[in-house]
């Protein structure tokens, strides 16, 4: 509290308006309510404006250079600096996904928190702001539309095999930003015979990873997530899904490193360390919720999973199995010595993560899932459950249809309608009037979103914004929801 006053006084001398804003931000921090915590770039700027704080901060950073926690704490000066900074807004600061200066923000975060956490802590606190319920809810609408349109789309007509991953590729190819960014990472992950790389290396892994990160940052999740989380019913589809991130370059390596070694190298990089902590926080299987995900927030888990792609800990599907897919890292626990248990536990969070699996299945609305992600109070398409404790996804007992003899017209559409109706307490009457979103419906919606964005530049810009903040999702999508809904009811 004393510190807070010091700050305010200092700022009054400096600039009155600024001080009002910052002190209100400060008071918001203490409560840990929905008032967003200050971002670490601002917090460190503020610290640097205060001579006492900035000197402690400098000492702290010097203390951490090349030293572990024990050595650092042995130093009295370091200890004193740490104590002072713990009462500073820097201690509570957080970063936003895809924010401007994200890396700088994360560096600022770890410059304090590295000294505050135990060195070999298994799970670390995520430096990212918790996802606001509104964000996840908006985002879930998109995925719901997508899954609905995938169901009604190519799976129905022509008798060609149902391949949602192919549909996702089509949707991406028809969107200028997605097409361009996809092309960029595919080229980057595939450049054979570039002069820079060694002849025995199949690709430039670093460049590939960077392009993949860029793809998921800049392309709207509406287009990028279906490529990665499409619900497959056959091997052809599942192999396509596995190939999404060009695993020959981004995933496989000649040797499999030890998983703890991989974690160590990840933790030496602020971005990787943050994303890993975020994954652990949002995808941690818990028995406290129905979905087994923290706060029943599937989308939060998917976001943090996608955040790992293009880093040292890039996860992927291990094979082209469609009925029982599994995710892993490219590492093994061989040679872990006395840390084998820890290594297994680390790897298990990827390989046997129920929350992650449920989230992926719920996104694709997979037939095998047995989960039909549930609906909100307003009539809606099946959507991912938002962060609300009173909402529970319906766990419907596995329908008596095997994945092979699925007739999409019968179940994909009417199924969801029934689920809808049931949730609203009405009688389930599958009607012929209900039609799935078909291609005709999907196409104008997508063209519309391109049109409203105008130029390529605007499309790029809004894609970037919406990847950072799903609230900016385009209105045509909302309109489309309306159209589908009015048909459904």
């Amino acid at each position: 509290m004393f510190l807070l006053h010091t700050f305010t006084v200092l700022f009054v001398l400096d600039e009155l308006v600024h001080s009002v804003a910052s002190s209100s931000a400060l008071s918001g921090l203490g409560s840990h309510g929905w008032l967003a915590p200050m971002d670490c770039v601002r917090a460190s700027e503020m610290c640097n404006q205060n001579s006492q704080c900035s000197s402690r901060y400098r000492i702290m950073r010097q203390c951490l250079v090349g030293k572990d926690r024990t050595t650092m704490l042995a130093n009295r000066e370091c200890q004193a600096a740490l104590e002072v900074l713990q009462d500073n807004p820097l201690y509570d600061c957080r970063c936003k996904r895809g924010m401007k200066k994200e890396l700088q923000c994360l560096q600022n975060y770890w410059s304090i928190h590295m000294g505050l956490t135990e060195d070999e802590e298994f799970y670390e606190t995520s430096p990212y702001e918790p996802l606001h319920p509104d964000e996840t809810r908006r985002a879930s609408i998109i995925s719901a539309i997508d899954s609905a349109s995938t169901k009604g789309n190519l799976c129905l007509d022509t008798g060609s095999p149902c391949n949602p991953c192919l549909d996702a590729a089509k949707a991406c190819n028809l969107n200028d930003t997605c097409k361009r960014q996809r092309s960029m990472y595919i080229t980057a992950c595939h450049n054979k015979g570039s002069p820079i790389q060694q002849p025995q290396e199949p690709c430039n892994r670093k460049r590939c990873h960077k392009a993949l990160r860029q793809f998921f940052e800049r392309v709207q999740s509406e287009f990028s997530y279906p490529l990665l989380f499409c619900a497959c019913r056959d091997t052809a589809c599942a192999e396509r899904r596995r190939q999404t991130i060009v695993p020959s370059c981004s995933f496989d390596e000649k040797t499999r490193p030890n998983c703890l070694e991989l974690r160590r190298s990840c933790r030496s990089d602020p971005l990787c360390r943050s994303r890993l902590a975020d994954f652990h926080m949002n995808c941690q299987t818990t028995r406290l919720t129905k979905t087994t995900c923290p706060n029943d927030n599937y989308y939060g888990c998917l976001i943090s999973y996608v955040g790992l792609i293009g880093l040292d800990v890039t996860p992927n599907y291990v094979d082209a199995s469609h009925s029982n897919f599994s995710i892993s890292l490219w590492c093994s626990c061989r040679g872990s010595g006395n840390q084998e248990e820890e290594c297994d536990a680390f790897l298990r969070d990827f390989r046997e993560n129920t929350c992650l699996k449920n989230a992926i299945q719920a996104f694709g609305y997979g037939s095998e899932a047995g989960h039909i992600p549930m609906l909100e109070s307003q009539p809606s398409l099946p959507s991912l459950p938002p962060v609300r404790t009173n909402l529970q996804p319906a766990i419907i007992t596995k329908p008596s249809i095997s994945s092979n003899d699925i007739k999409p017209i019968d179940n994909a559409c009417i199924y969801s309608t029934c689920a809808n109706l049931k949730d609203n307490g009405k009688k389930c009457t599958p009607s012929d009037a209900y039609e799935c979103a078909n291609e005709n419906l999907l196409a104008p919606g997508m063209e519309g979103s391109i049109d409203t964005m105008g130029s390529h530049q605007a499309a790029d810009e809004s894609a970037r914004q919406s990847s950072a903040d799903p609230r900016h999702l385009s209105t045509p999508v909302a309109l489309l929801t309306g159209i589908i809904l009015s048909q459904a009811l």
Partner: protein
Amino acid sequence: KRTKRARKVTTPCSLLNLEVTVSQLELGYEGDETVLFRYCSGKCSASRRNYDITLASVKKRLQGKKIRHNPCCRPTSYEEDISFLDNNYKYHTIKELSASQCGCV
């Protein structure tokens, strides 16, 4: 007769879209992925230059030389790359598949 035809096709040269599968490109790839093919189509009669009029009038004196005295609706620039996964799960990138701008040249 002539005016009727002129009224019928009034679309000026412009960029149009077509959805095609990779196999339908006939470039030797086998794939079911759909890509957007953008092409140029339309009339260029409005953009005849003095060059074209003169060339048409001196045609006879050029004795069977290959000449074109009408502008043509063609791409003036192309889209950079389009990438796709073929049916054998190999990635390919095609350069300059689609037009990005059209003009009467």
